């Protein structure tokens, strides 16, 4: 199996995640798209571990998994706070800080 298959699959998932971040207005759906992006990067790291024949890529993937868990926890807490204050989680209504 060509290890480049992993890289191409990860590229497809990454681009779908980027589209989700650009297109979605619901904050929870944007966080899900970020999860797609993080998973595609993990797939790349594991594929690099296979190519190099070392374990370092898998260790990096485990680091990314842990960071993603922390990111989802804090992100969803922020979404809950925004919902409690504004009764909406539409991201384009959060425009107080525009210049």
């Amino acid at each position: 199996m060509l290890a480049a298959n992993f890289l191409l699959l990860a590229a497809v998932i990454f681009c779908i995640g980027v589209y989700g971040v650009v297109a979605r207005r619901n904050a929870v759906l944007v966080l899900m798209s970020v999860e797609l992006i993080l998973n595609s990067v993990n797939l790349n790291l594991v594929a690099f571990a296979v190519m190099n024949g070392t374990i370092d890529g898998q260790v990096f993937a485990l680091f990314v998994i842990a960071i993603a868990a922390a990111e989802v926890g804090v992100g969803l807490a922020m979404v809950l706070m925004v919902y409690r204050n504004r009764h909406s989680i539409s991201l384009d209504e959060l425009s107080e800080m525009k210049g």
Partner: protein
Amino acid sequence: MSTTVASIVAVGDINVAQNVGFGVIALMMIVAAIRVVSTNDVVHAALWLVLVLAGVAAQYILAAAEFVAVSQVLVYIGAVMVLFLFGIMLTRAQIGGDRDVNNSTWALGIPAAVLLFGVLAWAVLDGVDELPGVDDSVIVDRGPAPTVAISDGFIGPYLVPFLALSFVLLAAAIGAIVLARKD
């Protein structure tokens, strides 16, 4: 000589099965990922995301990374998806679809994503000849990745990042509680 030929044939057979498995799982993942970013129902998007995450775990097993695959199932499908479902429930998404989950400029995301994929695919395919170990036997020959090696990495050369990561997780847990509690 004959054993070499036999082993090459055996490896080839395994690789056919591996390639078919990779293709089927990859197709499932791509379809599910497109549904995640295209469905109007937030709960359905979360459930399609479970399919993507399970496919990623299956790809890890194909790449002989069992420990990462198990971690993926435990952390993502077990913990992160529960967090997402709680977040959806607490923000009271409409059951059965919502009209305004997309931005008004959502169509701009399609050329952006296609352009990005073009650049990424060109970079991968252009550099694939220079990558080490992209021949057909590399994955099959290595066997399962030893968990011992991963743990040696964590408490050896990656000890300081590992400790820093534990502090990040602690800070994230405390921060999430502080942000989300009612006071």
